[in-house]
C-alpha cells in the first residue's frame, strides 16, 4: 500500500475526512507512515476513540501491509 492508497482508504471510511500521509523514515519505506487526519467525526470523541476510527478504517491492512502509523487526529478549524 502506498501513501495515496492509505489516504484514500481513510477518506472513504471516515465522514468528510482529509488525510495527509507521509513517510517519516525513508521515502521508499512503505510500511511506516505518518498520518494526519482532519474530520468533524472526531468532535466530542476521546483520543482513543478518535484513533480507533482511523484504525477501523484501515482494518486488516494495519499490522499486515502496514507496520505502523504515527497518527495525529483533529477536527476542522
Amino acid at each position, binding site marked *: 500500500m502506498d501513501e495515496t492508497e492509505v489516504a484514500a482508504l481513510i477518506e472513504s471510511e471516515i465522514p468528510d475526512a482529509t488525510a495527509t500521509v507521509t513517510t517519516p523514515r525513508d521515502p521508499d519505506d512503505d510500511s511506516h507512515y505518518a498520518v494526519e487526519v482532519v474530520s468533524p467525526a472526531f468532535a466530542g470523541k476521546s*483520543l482513543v476513540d478518535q484513533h480507533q476510527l482511523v484504525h477501523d478504517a484501515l482494518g486488516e491492512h494495519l499490522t499486515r501491509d502496514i507496520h505502523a502509523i504515527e497518527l495525529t487526529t483533529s477536527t476542522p478549524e
Partner: protein
Amino acid sequence: MSFEPREIPPEEAQENVVETIENNDVALFMKGTEMMPQCGYSRKALGLIGQYRDDVATVNVLTATEAYREKLAEYSGRETIPQTFVDGEFVGGSDILEQLDDDGELAATLNA
C-alpha cells in the same frame, strides 16, 4: 547473532494478557524487552511511561505475536503494538501517550 525470542504457546500468551492487564496498575505490551526494545514505537512508549512510573509491567509480544495481537484486540479493539493499560483500561499506543504528555495529562493518566 539472533534476537529471536523464545516462542510460547498461544494459550500462554492469552493468559499473560488477562493476568497482566488485571493485576498491574500500568501494563505495557511491547515488541522486545524493557532492556532491549525491538521497535522504535515500543521504545518511545516505554520512555514516556518511565518519566512518571518506574513500576510498569512489560510483556514482550514477540514471543507469540499473533496470539497477543488477537487477545489484546479483545481489550483494546486494535492489534497494533505497543498498547498501554492503566488499572485495566486501555489508554493507547505511543502516539496517544505522546499527545497526552504534550498536553500535560500523561502523569494524571498514569496515576503518577
